[in-house]
């Protein structure tokens, strides 16, 4: 069963990033930072890892003269995250069955 767990979503920060991007079309770097309470560097590292997996799409643009980067979950990312959640759910269910007398 454990082979369905996706290594890309192992940390809490990445679970958080994927979760909020599942319910929002796209979010900016700063919004993500505020929501998740992460430092710039920390967030950037996690985002890059998810982007390299092809789970996030990144759009860079300028608002006035300020760079504004927004992130969105790709279809592949949504699918992978859903699979991961299903695996977690199955794991928890199996665990709770075993612990019952």
């Amino acid at each position, binding site marked *: 069963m454990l082979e369905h767990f996706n290594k890309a979503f192992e940390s809490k920060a990445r679970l*958080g990033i994927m979760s*909020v991007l599942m319910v929002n079309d796209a979010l900016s770097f700063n919004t993500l930072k505020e929501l998740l309470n992460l430092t710039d560097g920390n967030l950037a590292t996690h985002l890059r890892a998810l982007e390299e997996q092809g789970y996030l799409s990144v759009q860079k643009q300028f608002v006035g003269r300020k760079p504004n980067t927004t992130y969105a979950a790709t279809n592949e990312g949504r699918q992978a995250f859903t699979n991961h959640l299903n695996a977690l759910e199955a794991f928890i269910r199996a665990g709770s069955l075993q612990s019952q007398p």
Partner: protein
Amino acid sequence: MDSSNQPLETLTEIRDLMQRSSKFLSLSGLSGVSAGIVALVGALVAYLRLKTDALSYENASQLSELTRREMMKFVLLDGTIVLIVAITLGIFFTRRKAQKAGQAVWNDTSKRLVVSLMIPLVTGGIFCLAMFYRGILWVSFPATLIFYGLALLNASKYTVRDLEYLGLLEVVLGLISLFLTGYNLLVWAFGFGVLHIIYGTVMYFKYDRK
């Protein structure tokens, strides 16, 4: 601290994160109550000034040109004041609630909320102005209810789901009002006044008081 609880806490946190990131939850129940009171006062002023519910379809033809223009000016002014005071108080209570919860008032979700609210609302406003311009005064009363209801329905995606019910009620009331032309002001006062106060009170006890 039991370490086996940690995954569960993480899940709760993530669920909260998903809610907070997609919905603006600082909308205060007191905003609804204050908007309702302001609307009732506005309707009462209109009733006292016009002395009658003379905005109905049947009576419209009996008015002379001068009193009709005066009446339009008065209704427009009254409506505008009600709108501005209600919005100002609404923003005040919502800001207060957000500050108490330590959350930002002006963020991505509240922007989306305002945009989704404004599109039907501005459409309705222009529609009503056009009706005024054409001299069909009475239509504005049901129309404001209908467009406001649609605006709430549209905006409910970005805040508590309960707003949907208020929106639907306003639309239904507006549609009824299109046929009950003799009671325009009364139905309007009920929709914007009484319904707001009831909704605001329910929301206040459901979400705000903790």
